[in-house]
């Protein structure tokens, strides 16, 4: 597996060749050859500005102000969005990057053969790169890789935060970044202009286009639920016949160590990220003096939208509902592919070992030899669950190496014990003024940050294990009086899947995946499948390991339910609710009632909130702008979660009139 990756930094061993390399003559490979001359970025904006349809769309907004006001606003928005291109800037950026990368990385690995295949098949339709988004480095790296392989650097969707950075915004814009406001569903003019711009870009641009389906950097190391907005604009160009097809390339960028790991941990606990500024950027460069280990860019199989949609979509008679469904399917397919492209580092496995150790023993220290043994055991499990771990050479050396790389989180004591570090936390003064300020005490934050940071490295692996983990967890609380059939377990499994739909991007309650997980558990000797019934055979180490994985998530959900049962939320916003739940959990941590700090994660709590509103447990009345809860369903969920946590068995007929009961009823029909 590892052989297909090549460290491209090996090509840049000599400093003095850098300049030669960046200034080389390049005949860029085009993603989309068109039978018309290339359109410059400025011309593109003009084409959009001239679009009479666009003017018709925004006309009403400018009712009294007239044509020129509309024109003016359209062109202002276009100036804000539009990318530019200056090869000189790209070349200098390349020089800067190669120096930085050489200093701070051990290796930048690419599955070169796949990239070459993709590049060789480019030309007939627009190519969309869809990488995972874990760090700001993502799009810089993508541009670098394309530049290295003589592919036109992609036009990339960037957030508005960069616009406020002086100089940097220019550099980015000139390297084909276009800027996208965060939420603009209600801004009719902006939305229309942006849509038209994207459509024009897709149809006229010859370089690849890149966007992040997660919409923002995932702070947790897990995939975020895919967003459909940008994707649907891109697909729209195909459906309206402006382009003959679309080639989508899912990409996973796996980091040994994420540049922003500490910031993310703070953010998850509720301390807002500093505003992006150029000054901040140069400060951040100092961070780059440390070693960040390897970065692996794994290009997935390109797939065509045309083939995916096959003939199910008619260009002439559009069907909104059908299209929306299809776009969702595409989005989830991309996320799924990105997940399966994940390459795990040694530290991901080590983080799992440490996590398991902490949950079992509450100790933040683990002897190295024990760690090595456990990592070795886990590698077998990764193998079974089809997770690829990138280990070069001897395991112990690799583990030691990864401990050095993650010096900000762990260190190896002189007694060869791995110890989790505690950061020194200084609350900035101005943050207390911030509305979104954090309620948590400094002690909680200091204790919490390393645990959350560790979880950031545990999280990517959950994609592999979470289904099995859910199966075992729900099995725990099923009544012993009755036989547990595959179907019964599946219904319970679906219930919890729905609850964590956003947390783990459980794309569908797909029976096949469930059944595969059952078979894996059976092959591990944990379960026994016999004529459609399931028995737990062996409460072994792996069993405990898998059960433990879900623990903080279940606790959070349970606390959330309790909060909803106790408090009146009618006048509150989502953010307030989430923050107050976090606050409540923090009290329980202080009083020793809860031990898992990751329960404090705002991301986790918001995901639960969203799941609860989809499960109709939290209901928002839009007219009155008030929140309500469905007491019956809430009670059921709460009891269910309590049972899960305490391993208590519950009677089969527990869920009368409830969500689960209904779902069982439906599936029986």
């Amino acid at each position, binding site marked *: 597996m590892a052989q297909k990756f090549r460290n491209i930094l090996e090509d840049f061993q000599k400093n003095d060749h850098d300049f030669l390399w960046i200034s080389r003559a390049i005949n860029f490979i085009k993603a989309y050859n068109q*039978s*018309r*001359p290339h359109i410059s970025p400025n011309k593109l904006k003009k084409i959009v500005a001239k679009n009479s349809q666009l003017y018709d769309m925004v006309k009403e907004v400018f009712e009294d102000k007239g044509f020129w006001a509309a024109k003016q606003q359209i062109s202002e928005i276009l100036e804000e969005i539009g990318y530019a291109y200056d090869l000189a800037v790209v070349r200098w950026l390349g020089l800067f990057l190669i120096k930085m990368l050489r200093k701070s990385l051990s290796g930048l690995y690419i599955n070169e053969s796949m990239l070459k295949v993709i590049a060789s098949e480019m030309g*007939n*339709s627009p190519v969309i790169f869809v990488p995972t988004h874990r760090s700001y480095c993502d799009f810089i790296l993508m541009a670098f890789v394309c530049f290295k392989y003589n592919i036109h650097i992609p036009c990339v969707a960037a957030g508005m935060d960069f616009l406020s950075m002086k100089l940097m915004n220019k550099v980015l814009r000139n390297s084909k970044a276009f800027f996208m406001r965060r939420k603009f569903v209600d801004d009719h003019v902006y939305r229309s202009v942006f849509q038209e711009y994207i459509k024009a870009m897709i149809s006229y641009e010859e370089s690849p286009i890149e966007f992040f389906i997660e919409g923002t950097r995932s702070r947790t190391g897990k995939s975020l639920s895919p967003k459909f907005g940008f994707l649907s604009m891109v697909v729209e160009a195909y459906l309206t*016949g*402006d*382009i*003959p*097809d679309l080639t989508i390339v899912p990409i996973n960028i796996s980091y040994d160590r994420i540049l922003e790991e500490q910031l993310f941990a703070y953010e998850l606990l509720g301390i807002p990220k500093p505003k992006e500024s150029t000054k901040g950027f140069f400060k951040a460069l100092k961070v780059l003096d440390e070693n960040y280990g390897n970065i692996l860019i794994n290009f997935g199989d390109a797939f065509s939208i045309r083939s995916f949609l096959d*003939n199910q979509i*008619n*260009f*002439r008679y559009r069907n909104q509902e059908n299209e929306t469904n299809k776009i969702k399917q595409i989005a989830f397919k991309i996320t799924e592919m990105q997940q399966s492209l994940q390459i795990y580092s040694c530290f991901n496995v080590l983080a799992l070992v440490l996590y398991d150790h902490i949950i079992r023993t509450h100790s933040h220290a683990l002897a190295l030899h024990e760690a090595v043994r456990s990592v070795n055991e886990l590698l077998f499990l990764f193998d079974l669950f089809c997770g690829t771990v990138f280990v070069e050479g001897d395991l112990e050396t690799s583990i030691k190496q990864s401990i050095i790389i993650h010096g900000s989180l762990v260190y190896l004591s002189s007694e060869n014990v791995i110890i989790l570090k505690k950061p020194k936390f200084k609350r900035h003064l101005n943050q207390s003024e911030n509305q979104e300020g954090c309620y948590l005490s400094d002690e909680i934050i200091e204790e919490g940050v390393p645990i959350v940071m560790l979880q950031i490295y545990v999280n990517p692996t959950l994609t592999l294990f979470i289904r099995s983990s859910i199966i075992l967890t729900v099995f725990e609380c099923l009544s012993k009086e009755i036989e547990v059939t595959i179907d019964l377990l599946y219904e319970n499994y679906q219930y919890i899947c729905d609850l964590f739909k956003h947390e783990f991007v459980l794309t569908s309650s797909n029976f096949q995946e469930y059944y595969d997980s059952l078979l894996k558990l059976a092959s591990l000797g944990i379960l026994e499948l016999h004529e459609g019934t399931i028995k737990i055979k062996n409460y072994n180490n792996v069993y405990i390991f898998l059960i433990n994985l879900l623990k903080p998530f279940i606790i959070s959900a349970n606390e959330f339910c309790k909060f909803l049962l106790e408090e009146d939320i009618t006048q509150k916003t989502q953010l307030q609710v989430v923050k107050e739940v976090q606050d409540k959990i923090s009290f329980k941590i202080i009083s020793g009632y809860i031990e898992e700090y990751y329960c404090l994660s705002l991301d986790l709590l918001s995901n639960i909130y969203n799941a609860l509103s989809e499960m109709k447990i939290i209901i928002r009345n839009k007219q009155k702008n008030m929140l309500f809860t469905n007491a019956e369903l809430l009670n059921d969920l709460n009891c269910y979660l309590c049972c899960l946590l305490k391993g208590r068995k519950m009677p089969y007929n527990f869920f009368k009139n409830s969500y689960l009961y209904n779902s069982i009823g439906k599936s029986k029909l």
Partner: protein
Amino acid sequence: MPKEVPSSKTISKCDHNDNSKDVPDKRYDSDRSFKLPSVKIQKPFSAIPKKRTDVIKWNGWGYNDSKFVVKDGIICFTGKRYPIGELELPYFTEWAKKLLNVDPFKICLPCEIPFDDFFPKTIINEDFLCEIMNLKIEHSVDGFERLTRSHGQTLHDIYSLRRNMGSIHRIPDIVLWPCSHEDVMHIIALADKYNVVIIPYGGGTSVSGAVSCPESETRTICSLDTSQMNNILWLDKKNLLVCCQTGLVGQDLESFLQERGFTCGHEPDSYEFSTVGGWVATRASGMKKNVYGNIEDLLVNVKLVTPKGVLSKEGLYPRQSTGPDLNHIVLGSEGTLGVITEVILKIRPVAPIKKYGSIVFPYFDAGVACMREVARQRCQPASIRLMDNEQFQFGQSLRPKNSSYWSSFTENFKKAYLKHIKGFDLNLICVATLLFEGEKDQVEQQETLIYKIARDCGGIPAGENNGERGYMLTFVIAYIRDLGLDFNIVAESFETSVPWDRTLTVCRNVKYIVGKKCKEFGIKYFLISHRVTQTYDCGSCVYFYFAFNWEGLSDPVATYGEIESAAREEILRCGGSLSHHHGIGKLRARWYPKQVSQLGANLYSATKKYLDPNNIFACQNLLPLKSNL
């Protein structure tokens, strides 16, 4: 069944308005507009004799003496009929080598004319044949005559004749040569009586499989060859009308009229060989339809002989509000309802000025924008066509070395000017060819307007010479396929009509889908090219050319069929039609009900069942057999 055969002896006075006596003028005291002439008609000169293979190929396109051949590794065109005749074409040779990987020394000769025992056995209804002989209608059961009337000009037809003779199983059993409407009426009555299948055959240029025999047909199949029904019945100079029999070949009609200062103006690319009846039966479209109209605009009256009688309207009215126009049941009936025997067409005085022109555009989209604008302003010249870059390059290659007349487009036009001053990329440019017809000032006016629109769309006028050559090559291009088949190249064209806002989508997506399919089939060398050949108020007609080198494929025709089907599906999905002027035939029958709605298909079926209850017109065009009966 009552049959009225009009007597040919009715004589009435002629209105002598002009001095030419070779054709009778229309008679005003006649209540029947088609009534037979009183004076002996001098048959117009016929370019194609009764034994058609004496002049035109039995296994390919066009005249026997005109074809592409390879001499010493260089492609040449033989004969003197066309301007590129008897000239070496080195650039074309290079083009074929480069684009389609043709090896000019690796020729695979086509099959010879088969021996008599080769032809499929005849199924003869003796009683029928006997009655036909009694009527003294000419007939033949000769194998070769039958074979030459068993096909049109689809890739499948020509490939079978040249490369795969063994695949020919069902051909007509008898060939009949009626001379008049009355002959046809007798034949149809007998065919209906003896349950014999009739397939009308005109010029044999069908590209929809319309004249081929259904393999499952067990009845006697008669090919009704209309070639001897080629009389001009009368010419009405006052009303500008001509009445003729339907076996008349396009070029014969045209030269007859031209001699007298008139023109029909209907000029499909096949007009050298196709017949008036064929035009009506397929709903043909001519190159100069902007001035003269398509066949449905030209057709004033028509006679259709069906087993139930003759369908024909009364009078010579310019327009009627008398219920649905029944001419439109005949137009596009593709031989499934009856035999078209006589028609009355509009004619025009010959235009004093005929002028060519051309415009070069930086890229295809700009050209389409120009065509759209021309259509919006309704200022189309007689013809305006837009070729894409592939076709432009191909057209460029079709010129001999060292000839000033044939000098390349860019030589004509100063390459440097295009490239450096206008910034055109020679690999992207495309060319529109124009044909103006009319009075001098009219043409001048039109030119000014069109070139202005062209400039607004980024185009530059590129001279008359380039335009003229473009039109000249139209008739030569059809000959290339026969050569290609000798070098493992299959080629075919297909067309559609499409609203303006979907025109580019259709072009782009068809190119894409063909490329994709070729890749799937492992086809390395192929050419897909398109041109916009007609403009209408609300859309255009797009013509596609597709050729590939079939090396490594076992059944190139089947592969071609699959690719064209995929392209057609894409065309329909993008909003293009099933056909603009080629017709449905058997090739496109499977899409027909969807195009006209199920009710529409049923309506057609009901008509068919009424007019032809025994299904003697069993060529299975439009609707396959099952839904027909």
